[in-house]
């Protein structure tokens, strides 16, 4: 017998072509808008044109008169069913349909259900709403003003616009570090509001069947089981009578985690009409009302010793959450994992205060392609590190190397209490610097400057916490953040695997089968993977925060091992030896000392149905619920070089080098695809992609003509490198990766432009680094703020 070649069977490390592509390239995907049910009606939402206004009246009489209109719902009507408000996944409430007042532009005011979507849109336009405008708040400074209107006057005991006021770390110890500092480096900046903006918007089809009392909802959800729990609580429908199906998703990036009013309205409409009701959001609705990312202000300080050692870090952040605190949040941490900042540096002490504010802007603060706010955490860190190295006159790379946690210092306790467990930060830096030709570029930069050309290089290095939880520290609404996998091997050795995660393009159907192949020796092509149907999948917390591989992926490995343990008993029976005498190699059990006497895993599967030993339960299947002992801590180093045109402020990317250590790679092709996608979103945020507001609360960036996303033309090429430090606690040594480049990337672009400007009078330009902002910094030699409000004629 020759041993199976793991790469040939599509196991770990194989760049296996994706299974799901077979339907996508034929246009045979099954996205929510592709689903048509018999008798289906269509829902459209009427949204508020004003950011803050009292509702005097809503007159829907003209809408009811339009032929084909089946139902018009208003806030008043929702209130009679106790559904005008719903709980959020962040321990707040959110209006489903406005009753008392509207609190942001785009808020849901009424909805129409009609025979077709055109009629429903016509009817929305026939609804007359009388508004009384109120003063508008578009940033935290306005929210904190003494005479600020109280946005959330619906809440008892809410006498200001503060969502939370939270602190973590050692205040006194940090104060002492600052007293001993040779140099204190300060940085103030705003991480602008951005929108995850998957190309597919949100939507749902609710189908309530009166005969069975069962509610089926097809919807765009990254976390269908959480939605099932939320629907059970809000709509008071028994959980077993709710089936959530998340079909193919056209991207998610965090946008499809929260519960949105449109879902709730379509459910209620279906219950009232006893017909399936489809709601498909348009792009403008998606951009102005659903979960955004970022919108956080930093006041940062670093205490430094002359020789470059960081003695302490002090940070205050103000987060603008809009009208409702409606993203998903681990209950113990108010601003997500912001306090994972500076985890890759060996820092004795640090202190963070964080305030969340209500404003008259779209609600949320979702983790847009990041693990609960770590994008802000790492951007702040790497912008502060850049400024600190400059303040000390030190080389950017050497300043980082001096302060990195060393390879032999793991496990390492970060100043805010996280435990990082593995990494080779110095090695990643070496790989990156060699790839970019660091010293040569510095010389080239100096030479170019003599001729009036502005070249710059930016570094960003970070380790981030991916794969929540463990259950001790991480829960949402009290539900612990574990995940699950269920594996059933059929008698011919083919199998079906279901997990509690939900792919939105990550390729789970391909990679999960590779883990099974690695653990059991079944060819990956013999394993079907299914996700997203709460009636069949085991309970899991879904896919976001780069948690699929760290948590559900671990569950896939663990359930495969459980199945292998039973297969070993079957093998012993077939080989007529005791279990202790059975050895395993990939795909096959054999008798110790007699390697020619063996049975394949497929033969064991057949025996599980046709020839099991006396007393053994038939079948070959199991389920695993995996509660990770810790987060995984991948490391990313991103280096960008740019040239800035001093005459226009336009900057071009010259090169982008990425060094990612995400532990063991299951499918290198897919990992690299994730990294390139992440780098593109980093480039997008640094260069063009943001949502802002004028003083009246009008959203600037409410469609793709105003909300700029990079195309193939603007997007630079990427050079990828890898270092592998296996995760010590993950069963296959993997770490999360989907978000690393989005998290670590933006600072590399900004630092590169700041380096090209090379003026100590310019400490910061807020993202995106639009040409006019860069030009202003170059000519006026000052910081450039991008915080709202913007002039409405901009």
């Amino acid at each position, binding site marked *: 017998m020759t041993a199976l070649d793991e790469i040939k069977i599509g196991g770990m490390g194989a760049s296996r*072509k*994706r299974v*799901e*592509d*077979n*339907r*996508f*390239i*034929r*246009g*045979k*995907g099954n*996205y929510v*808008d*592709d689903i*048509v049910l018999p008798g289906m009606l269509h829902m459209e939402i009427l949204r508020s044109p004003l950011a803050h206004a009292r509702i005097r009246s809503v007159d829907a009489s003209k809408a009811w008169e339009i*032929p*084909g209109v089946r139902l018009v719902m208003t806030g008043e009507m929702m209130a009679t069913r106790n559904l005008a408000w719903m709980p959020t996944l962040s321990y707040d409430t959110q209006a489903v349909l406005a009753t008392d007042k509207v609190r942001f532009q785009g808020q849901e005011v009424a909805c129409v259900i009609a025979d077709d979507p*055109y009629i429903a849109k016509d009817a929305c336009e026939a609804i007359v709403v009388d508004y009384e405008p109120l003063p508008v708040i578009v940033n935290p400074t306005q929210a904190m003003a003494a005479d600020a209107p109280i946005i959330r006057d619906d809440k008892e005991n809410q006498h200001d616009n503060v969502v939370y006021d939270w602190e973590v770390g050692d205040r006194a110890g940090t104060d002492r570090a600052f007293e001993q500092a040779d140099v204190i480096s300060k940085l103030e900046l705003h991480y602008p509001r951005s929108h995850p*903006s*998957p*190309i*597919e*918007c949100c939507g749902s089809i609710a189908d309530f069947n009166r005969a069975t009392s069962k509610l089926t909802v097809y919807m765009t959800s990254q976390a269908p089981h959480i939605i099932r729990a939320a629907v059970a609580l809000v709509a008071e429908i028994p959980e077993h009578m709710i089936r959530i199906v998340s079909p*193919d*998703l*056209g*991207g*998610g*990036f965090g946008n499809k985690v929260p519960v949105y009013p449109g879902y709730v309205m379509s459910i209620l409409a279906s219950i009232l009409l006893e017909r399936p009701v489809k709601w498909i959001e*348009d*792009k*403008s609705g998606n951009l102005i009302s659903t979960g955004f990312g970022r919108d956080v202000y930093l006041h940062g300080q670093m205490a430094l010793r002359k020789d470059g050692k960081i003695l302490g870090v002090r940070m205050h952040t103000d987060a603008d959450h809009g009208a409702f605190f409606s993203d998903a949040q681990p209950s113990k941490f108010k601003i997500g994992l912001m306090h994972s900042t500076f985890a890759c540096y060996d820092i004795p002490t640090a202190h963070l205060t964080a305030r969340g504010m209500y404003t008259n802007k779209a609600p949320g603060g979702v983790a847009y392609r990041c693990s609960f706010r770590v994008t802000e955490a790492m951007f702040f860190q790497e912008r502060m590190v850049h400024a600190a190295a400059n303040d000390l006159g030190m080389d950017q790379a050497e300043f980082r190397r001096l302060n990195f946690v060393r390879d032999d210092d793991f496990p390492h306790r970060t100043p805010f209490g996280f435990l990082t467990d593995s990494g080779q930060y110095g090695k990643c830096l070496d790989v990156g610097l060699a790839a970019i030709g660091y010293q040569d570029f510095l010389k080239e930069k100096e030479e170019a400057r003599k001729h009036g050309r502005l070249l710059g290089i930016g570094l960003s290095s970070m380790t981030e916490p991916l794969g929540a939880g463990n259950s001790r520290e991480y829960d949402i609404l009290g539900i612990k953040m574990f995940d699950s996998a269920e594996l059933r091997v059929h008698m011919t050795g083919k199998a079906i695997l279901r997990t509690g995660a939900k792919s*939105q*393009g*990550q*390729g789970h159907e391909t990679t999960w089968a590779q883990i099974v192949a690695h653990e059991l020796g079944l060819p990956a092509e013999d394993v079907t993977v299914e996700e997203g149907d709460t009636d069949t999948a085991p309970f899991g917390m879904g896919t976001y925060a780069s948690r699929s591989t760290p948590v559900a992926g671990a569950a896939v490995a663990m359930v495969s091992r459980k199945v292998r343990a039973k297969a070993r008993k079957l093998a012993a029976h077939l080989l007529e030896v005791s279990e202790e005498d059975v050895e395993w190699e990939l795909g096959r059990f054999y008798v110790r000392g007699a390697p020619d006497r063996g049975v394949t895993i497929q033969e064991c599967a057949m025996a599980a149905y046709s020839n099991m030993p006396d007393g053994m339960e038939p079948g070959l299947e199991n389920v695993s619920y995996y509660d990770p002992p810790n987060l995984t801590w991948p490391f990313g180093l991103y280096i960008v070089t740019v040239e800035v045109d001093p005459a226009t402020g336009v900057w071009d990317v010259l090169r982008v080098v990425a060094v990612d250590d995400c532990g063991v790679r299951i499918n290198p*092709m*897919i990992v*690299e*695809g*994730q990294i*390139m*996608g*992440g*780098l*593109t*979103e980093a480039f997008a945020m640094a260069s063009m992609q943001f949502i802002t507001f004028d003083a009246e609360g009008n959203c600037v960036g409410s*469609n*793709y*003509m105003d909300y700029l*996303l990079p*195309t*193939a*033309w603007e*997007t630079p*090429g*990427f050079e990828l490198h890898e270092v592998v430090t296996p995760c010590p606690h993950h069963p296959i040594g993997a770490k999360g990766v989907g978000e690393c480049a989005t998290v670590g990337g933006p600072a590399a672009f900004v630092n590169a432009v700041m380096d090209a400007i090379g003026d100590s009078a310019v400490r910061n330009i807020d993202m995106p680094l639009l040409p006019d902002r860069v030009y202003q910094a170059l000519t006026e030699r000052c910081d450039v703020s991008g915080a709202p409000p913007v002039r409405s004629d901009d």
Partner: protein
Amino acid sequence: MSSLYEEIKPTPASDVPVRRVTITVNGEKRVAEVEPRLLLAHLIRQGLRLTGTHTGCDTSNCGACTVLLDGIPIKSCTMLAVQADGHAVTTVEGLATASELHPVQEGFKDEHGLQCGFCTPGMMLAAKALLDANPDPTEDEVRWALSGNLCRCTGYQNIVKSVLWAAEKLRSQSAS
């Protein structure tokens, strides 16, 4: 009558004008009665049930709805169905034959040119139009030809490689 049973809807109170259009879709002549305001994307998706054409942005920016009109890529979300009357439309469903994928489709799978798959049909049709006109494009020409189609997952690098892969395959096919 196109089937054994067709429901006749009662005439709505307001007289909705209806126009008859004849469109050749993926080589097959289709006749439909449509409201003049009906968008071509909606006729293709809801009327003809060809759901591979996606709608993403409604403003001609994202290109998920790209189809070929007489071989030229257009955004079907901002073209009225009546404007397509008498023309030939190719959607993603028309790319492959029953037995064989189009090289652009093969290229996207081989070079990992897609992740969530939502932009992919439009991307592939824009790519096909490019390769029909320019069988040996440079990387810059590919990037320019695809600049009307947005992707949020891949970062475009593999999409460009996919198109270049397809170009090479098409050239070698026509050479042999």
